[in-house]
């Protein structure tokens, strides 16, 4: 349930607010109702992973993948290990890790916050 709620609220909120809004949303939902720290983490991380991955894949496909290829070229100039990696999956993965970790850790913090008052 938390998964769906975070996914929907974050999708709407990010249209108007900066990317980090996923952190307070995950915190609040994590604090509101989570059975455990792990479940809070999984729901938020999963929700943002789904949302970001889904939306980015859609944007990437409608651009024939040009943008991510250029960004990949730029990053791999400084970070040589990227040169041997497939750019699109790698960058989708980096993005997913960024979004899901921020959301997951925030939800975990939210759960522990609520636990203070139990």
């Amino acid at each position, binding site marked *: 349930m938390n998964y769906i709620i975070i996914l929907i609220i974050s999708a709407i909120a*990010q*249209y108007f607010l*900066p*990317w*980090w809004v996923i*952190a307070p949303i995950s*915190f609040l939902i994590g604090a509101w109702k989570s059975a455990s*720290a792990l479940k809070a983490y999984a729901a938020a991380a999963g929700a943002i992973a789904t949302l*970001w991955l889904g*939306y*980015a894949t859609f*944007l*990437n496909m*409608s*651009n*024939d993948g*040009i*943008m*991510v*290829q*250029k*960004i*990949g*070229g*730029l990053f*791999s*100039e*400084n970070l040589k290990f990227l040169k041997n990696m497939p750019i699109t999956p790698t*960058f989708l993965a*980096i*993005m997913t890790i*960024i*979004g899901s*970790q*921020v959301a997951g*850790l*925030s939800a*975990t*913090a939210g*759960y*522990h*916050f609520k*636990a*203070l008052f139990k």
Partner: protein
Amino acid sequence: MKFVKFIVSLIAALGLTLLLNGPLGSIPALGRLFSPFEGFWQNGEDKTTLPPANLQLEGVNDEVNIVFDDNRVPHVFAKNDHDVYFAQGYLVARDRLWQMEFYTLAASGRLSEVVGERALELDRYNRRMGMADAAKKVYENGKTNKIFDEVLNAYSAGVNAYIKQLKYKDLPVEYKIIGYQPEEWSPYKTILMMMNMRNVLNGGSDDFRMTNALSKYGMDVVKDLFPDYPSNESPIIPTGTKWNFTPVSVPQTPAQITANLSTSESVAFNIPSHSPEIGSNNWAVGGEKSATGLPILANDPHLQLTLPSIWYQMQLSTPTMNVYGACLPGAPGVVIGFNKDVAWGVTNVGSDVMDFYQIKFKNNSKKEYWYNGAWKPTTMRVEEFVVKGKKEPLKDTVYSTHHGPIVYNIASEKNLNQNVPVSHAMRWVALEKDGTDLMAFYYLNRAKNYDDYRKALTYYIAPAQNFIFASNSNDIAITPNGKLPLKWKEQGKFIMDGSNPAHDWQGWIPTEQNPTVKNPSRGFVSSANQFSADPTYPYYLGWKFAPSERAIRINERLEKMQKATIDSLRMLQNDNFNVEARRILPELIKILNTDASLKNSSAYQTLAKWNMKNDANEIGATIFERWVREIRYAIWEDDFSMKNDKSPMNYPSRDRTWELIVKQPTAQWFDNTTTKDKHETMQDIVKSSFQASIDSLTKKFGPMNASTWAWTNVKSTDINHLGRLAGFGRQDIPNGGGSGIVNATTELNGPSWRMVVQLDKGWPKAYGLYPGGQSGNPASHFYDNMIDKWAKGELNELLFMKSKDEKSSRISATMTILKK
């Protein structure tokens, strides 16, 4: 325990979020950059994405209709001048905002504000040059011209209307990567953009290197090796053209034409020579030479090739104007283009408009300098540099004399204990504060005939350009035009004496006496940055212009051309014939012939069979180009070292070098002075350089091979991103050409816009393209879509519409801007 868990998880969550929300060293803020809702994913453009059909904007007076063609060129139809320039600003910003702002940050020495310390030296240099200061004053003076002020303000308002709509997610991706925001545009920034062009085209000097050569070898040698006019030349104004004016009197040449050499010995200085690869071609054939009986005009300005491209195509139409052509992002109007009646183009004039004066200060405070027998006060300006990543702004004090700013000078800066430091002041036409250059284009855009063209040119200051012109009343003309200092012969060839009033710039060549020719008997006009006129022209313009090979080739082909068509001019733009090889290769081959081992080498065989064309797949071109470079190095580096940090000099020109080989083969210069017990002859140098160039080619590309030694592969043309973002450019573009070739495509420079216009009594026919695309967005299909065609030497037919309602299968979208 609960509390600890909370604190730990909160710190982890908050810490990660904050870490990703800000930049980490050179890595940009990753959270925002990667978020699909805001970051780079948002910059992806769908192939079929259309511009919005309707826009309501504050700032237009009436409805503006815009038609986009299949190359995404906007055709703007407005009801008045204000609206057309407003729409131009809006549309250029929509495609090129990051680029236009980047030029202004560079010209005003503010790049380190966005990229940090690595741009600081460049910024210091540009601030000392004083372009920002001059741009402010140019606008202050220019705005008394009501039209100028209105055009600039309308354009700015258009740019700002676009900027105002932007949220972070809409920003050009370069802002997201580098991490900054666009600033408001203003007329001052438009002038800064033009300052950037002045710097690129007029911002070079050989004065320091020439002075070093003079102090080492004396005037006789310098006169012999660095003559004021080349042995082979084909000047822009055909030899024999009458000068239809009474010249004004030229200031007397003083007895002493240089600074005191004993104190200015060994001046190292970081003002670069003008790059010979930054130049251009243009020509127009008259009706008697064309198939249609009316003129055809061609232009290809050579600049450093970048993505986004320096040019942006547009059609601008109002009830009193309908013009199409290439625009500079940041500047209103069309710079190179055509309308129903006329076409025009520009190439750079290489006249000497940047001079240096040795300044003697009273003391280290630099408050006073010696001039005309008295101490004269300097003015002082403190430049402040806000550097990204540094808390405190840095400061730099710039002193100015009546000549111009004191630019820094490595020798004196390292030598601070000198009691009375010797410094150098710069007099540079780019810092002229009068005039309204852009009005020249304003009037050319509306010109109907030759008289309108001549009138338009009077507004133009700098960088001086060879304005070529053709009209459907069957006139062709060319005018090296701009504000040109009235100099005594060789004034400014060397560093001058800043205390001597006779060394000042003492006036200007009257504009109407700039060299010009209309409908010459040879039936065509042309320019390729060579000497504007032969020595019969009564004024001294400079001692060094671009080498004459391109001009010679263009003129000999046009001379022969009959019934010229658009395609014959297009083919000439792509001519790869090597005039220098025709001149010198037979002589050099003769020398190789005397050595059996060289003669039997496959490199020799290839070179002997070469068709003297720098075509993409020629190996002969590769060997020749590397060999002549090696020859010049071998002859001159020991005597006129360019590499010497303390006292760099210039090599004598290619023209002088070949003349020396043919006419003075026993000259002392052929001996390599670094070999003590050996005396090298001219023949020794030619042979050893041949071997050296083959060795270095083999070292880099392996044994001779049709693909690795192909000229295109060795030359390797790259079109890099303007901000040098790796992965945002295009590398190794397959093509031929070279620096002395009409198709002047080199490693990094080349024809930045190619245009051919056939004038017509009814409606002109025009072709053109540039190596890039209309969009500045690296993710757009229109970012670099013209490069492949450009490399092949093809052109696009340009859609020049009669009205907004004209039907064409090439129209891909329309947009209407309404008043809000």
